[in-house]
């Protein structure tokens, strides 16, 4: 893998934020990879100078030369139509005379472009690749975590729930999955962890309805306690009715009973 410090240098280089000493650092790294530094400096100077090349004014003589050239071309055209030298021969002989300075100029540009591209592109490609890879990794990890919610080991399911809590508790798919875990997972601690994730997004209507609907459905005292705490803290007045119904149960845990009593008093 790349050195992290080098990545920072490249980012600064792309943003043109390199200080002189950082630039020297970059140069020393490039020199270490076999780049000739004086040559790079020349190339840079040429590249910077390109924009400042003087463009000659279109004067009287230039216009005259242009028309003369045009006449010349016209004459050649009629000559060609008369079947004199072939088009290939004409291009090689006459065309080259006119085009060679432009070709040379284009060649210089190609060389400069290639050099600069060679110098800068790997960094850019690397950056893009990292971004692409990290988004692919995130998606892969997400998929993996969704599948992990169905594993037989409670610690694996806990890990998946924890992952969603850290990453995107408000995501629609995550909310659906967490509600499912909270209602159906066989392990109390996994259900509790899912409840903790849901508590963080209780402003979501679906979550609120899911939590209130579960008041009378959850049998574990630990879940009942946590659920009461969450609903009371979030001032969910609609929870009072199902909480009263829960109190009617004869087998209700005593700690849960006193907690609900206190909760109902706080809510009403």
């Amino acid at each position, binding site marked *: 893998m790349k050195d992290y410090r080098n990545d920072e240098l490249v980012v600064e280089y792309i943003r043109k934020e390199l200080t002189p000493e950082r630039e020297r650092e970059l140069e020393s790294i490039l020199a270490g990879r076999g780049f000739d530094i004086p040559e790079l400096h020349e190339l840079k100077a040429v590249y910077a100078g390109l924009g400042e090349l003087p463009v000659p004014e279109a004067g009287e003589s230039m216009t005259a030369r242009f028309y003369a050239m045009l006449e010349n071309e016209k004459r050649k055209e009629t000559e060609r139509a008369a079947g004199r030298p072939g088009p290939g021969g004409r291009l090689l002989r006459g065309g080259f005379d006119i085009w060679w300075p432009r070709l040379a100029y284009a060649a210089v540009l190609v060389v400069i472009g290639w050099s600069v591209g060679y110098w800068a592109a790997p960094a850019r490609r690397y950056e893009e690749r990292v971004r692409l890879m990290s988004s692919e990794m995130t998606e892969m990890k997400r998929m993996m975590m969704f599948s992990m919610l169905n594993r037989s080991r*409670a610690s694996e399911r806990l890990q998946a729930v924890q992952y969603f809590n850290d990453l995107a508790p408000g995501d629609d798919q995550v909310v659906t999955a967490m509600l499912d875990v909270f209602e159906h997972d066989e392990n109390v601690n996994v259900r509790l962890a899912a409840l903790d994730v849901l508590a963080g997004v209780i402003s979501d209507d679906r979550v609120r309805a899911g939590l209130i609907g579960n008041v009378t459905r959850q049998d574990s005292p*630990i879940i009942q306690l946590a659920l009461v705490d969450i609903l009371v*803290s979030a001032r969910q007045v609609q929870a009072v009715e199902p909480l009263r119904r829960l109190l009617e149960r004869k087998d209700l845990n005593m700690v849960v009973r006193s907690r609900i009593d206190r909760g109902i008093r706080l809510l009403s």
Partner: protein
Amino acid sequence: MKMMKSRLRDAAVVYMSAAALLLLSSIDPAAGPLTGPEGHADGPADPAVHRNGSEQLILGLSSPDEEGVLIVQHHKGTVRITGYDGEMVIVNASPRYVDTAVVASGGMKPFPGHSIKLHAIEKHNVVTVSTNSHERTIDLEVRVPFDFSLHLEKHAAGDVHVHYLRGEMEITSSAGNVSLTGISGSAVISTVEGDILLRFERVTPHAPMAFTSVTGDIDVAFPADVRASVKMMTGRGDIRSDFDIEVDRRQAKTQTSESTGIQRAFLEDWTYGSLGGGGPRFLFRSYRGNITIRKSGNHPRGAE
């Protein structure tokens, strides 16, 4: 040539005596009847096995070299699960109140094998054990090879004791204490009224754990070099530790401020911290009990 022949003969003798020994050891009468992957003991099977109406089943594993999983559903009575240096799973179930049953029925003894029902099945190294402990109190004792994970649901009164297992311990108990000693691996444990006592010798890296109870104390010992991010809460008890837990107040605050204007008082009580620089999340939560997180080998209660 002659030498070689005699060597071959010697080797054959050694091999055959080893085979005979193996054969003998496998029909050791003390080990009880050998059953296949599935065993029923709810009928009058071998009378020699019934001692005061108790039942025994012995099961082999499909792949003895690989890790096994023991799944137990139990209601009334204690459950004791112990790892041992062997390849079989040995299940013993005995009724708790034999004498009272005899007295109550005016000297009439229950017919052997009809008093309790023990059922065990093995499939792909997963052993499932169940009894009629919802009808009567049954003490269950299971011996398994060391490399075994446990999945135990305890629905009524009775303690759980687990010793010397390597794997994941998953226990849910509604009443009674849960104690585990000499454990390597990870644990997800929940009780309602019972205490949780756990002594780890080694922990599986990166495995999250959770210990929750309504009124019970939670007392867990980890190796001194354990790495974890702990999240703890107790309603009325204390939190104690001989680890240098770096308490993270910042995390607790962020959680509260995220709450979009809704007051979330229940989160105020959470304490976040890290052991050994942080790692997988270990959650400890008891509403009425104490929480103790200690270094292995540092437990005055003499649990090991």
